[in-house]
């Protein structure tokens, strides 16, 4: 994509700067993006559940690295 749009915004110190505007491709997707399709073995699936849904199934910690105590 070459035709980027830019917005003008005020920086924290008051200086006006140019920032990149929204960038998405025009048109509609053909179907839903099935992000689970890459997890094609049971091992990968279980690994994924234990890391991505670690709030319930993770063994290595609680939530993100910022949480010290289980909630």
């Amino acid at each position, binding site marked *: 994509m070459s035709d980027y749009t830019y917005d003008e915004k005020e920086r924290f110190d008051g200086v006006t700067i140019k920032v990149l505007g929204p960038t998405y491709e025009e048109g509609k997707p053909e179907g839903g993006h099935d992000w689970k399709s890459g997890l094609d073995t049971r091992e990968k699936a279980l690994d*994924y559940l234990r890391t991505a849904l670690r709030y*319930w199934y993770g063994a290595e910690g609680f939530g*993100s690295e910022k949480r010290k105590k289980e909630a």
Partner: protein
Amino acid sequence: MADELIRSIDKATLEMLEKAEKEQVSTVFSRADQIKPCPIGVEESCCKICAMGPCRMPRSKKGEEKARMGVCGATVETVVARNFARKIAAGSASHSDHAREVTETFLKAAQGQAQGFTIKDEIKLFEVALDFGIEIEDRSVTDIAIELGQKALEEFGKQHGELTYIRKAPLKRQEIWKKQGVIPRGIDREVVEIMHRTHMGVDQDYVHILEQATRCALADGWGGSMISTDLQDIMFGTPVPVVGTINLGVLKEDEVNIVVHGHEPLLPELLVTASRDPEIKKLAEKAGAKGINLAGMCCSANEVLMRHGIPCAGNFLQQELALVTGAVELMTVDVQCQMQGLQDVAACFHTKLVSTSDRAKIQGATHMEFHPDTGLDTAKKILRLAIENFPNRRGPVQIPDHKEDIVAGFSHETINYLLGGLFRASYRPLNDNIVNGRIRGVAGVVGCNNVRTVHDSAHIAMIKELIKNDVLVLTTGCAAMACGKAGLLTPEAARAFAGEGLAEVCEAVGIPPVLHMGACVDNSRILVAASAMVKEGGLGDDLSDLPVAGAAPEWMSEKALAIGQYFVASGIFTVFGSPWPTLGSDKVTRHLFEEYEEIYKGTWAFEADPVKAAQRMIAHIDTKRKALGLEKARERVLFDMAMRRNLT
């Protein structure tokens, strides 16, 4: 005409109402004009549970010393609490009986006895099996699924112990429930106990009655509804964002239009499969149609939209109006929210109304019962009936030229993935953006349409006010469809309607400012998402610490009250629009609106004006932000008259 009522903010609805009026077709709108709500019933201060009544207990007039009571001596508090609890029992029963049907079909599918059904989402199967403590390692998918089906079925009839999914809630929340003694034992048991306790002469302490109402509602949200959502995901696939279209304009003049209406997605799934059968397509062409056009209505619409991108014809108040187009060959109905008035409207046109559940028949409608073992055959039979009916259209059809693009299908799993990607999936980016203030908080705006409000207006006014103020909105049910019709469910809506901070986040992630999370049974997804936010860290230790709020501004169904009660009991401030069903008793209302804060750290509120209600939600979110030590509350963007006019 000066006294003409504004009925809807949706142009397609208005166009069809005009047609209905011209052709003298009775609809929910015209019937609402003829029947005014009973002023005593609307405050729930009448009791008719025994044959010594009905006992009517309107609020005491000024100067009256003694409070009114029923023939048996029941106080108005008892009566109002009984009525409220019974509604929650009915709402919970509806979601949970839907869940039972899904569970039984799931078990049959696992055993290879449900025609056309399989296990589509193995990862979700493993996920739910972990929830239920089922061994996975080397077992076959069939074995795991059968054990899961059996264990899920046991949740309904369990007499003692705790529902499995209770363990998904944050630990602090579980402690609160334990302390209050409201952890549900079994789904059916809690419904039955409400019916018993509210029978004549049993439980006569409104606080005690409402405690059981809470236990029952929790059995709905963290039990029946959650089971239904999860098992449907396993059978049909966990929703991923999908593009669809919505409103009556999705009907097609030159195709066989079939509208699937109701709540259970079992038959609709098979209709989707069957409609793609080349033999069926050929039959449609032979009948002179260009093809088969399947469209959804109410929550069945949400289900097939999220999983297949099937277009959505409309929400609750549009069900009769879809038939008024004269373009619908057949409408299927199963359970919940289908009006009996449909058959009369169908009779004015050529439409065949087909009831498909063993739980619900409508007089005059054709009954073609769905059973999982012969489901695909039934689906094909229904499609053939619709095709045969295509040449029978009477008069010219009129399809409103209104439809909108939408993106739907934001399951908890998908949000988790979208925010962090496959290998870093987490709610961290959401929590971080709440902490840094780009997102002020999160609101769940859900629920029905109610003909006593202007169709869709309260949803849209409330949600626009919320997103303008950087509150990310999660939505389900008919509220979600209202958002779709108003153009709020596309990523582009972020720039057009959301505040600067929320818009930035939506653009970075590529999501709309309002996330369509499914049918009303899928409010359980909101509970899971909120629990994940707590567990992620940085926003307190309990659901009640989160800067979140819930609302149902156009509610009408008993299910909405069950949903509200489990939101509140989960620690979430929840505001409902008109009417509020405990106004007959100040004490009961105070208990729900004020004393619940002490007990559950979440309360009910009532506010008829949707913009004011949104402002109360924002104020609540700001209070929670302050308690978390997150910056000073920021300026609110209040809508002026010109901005409000633009809402319609």
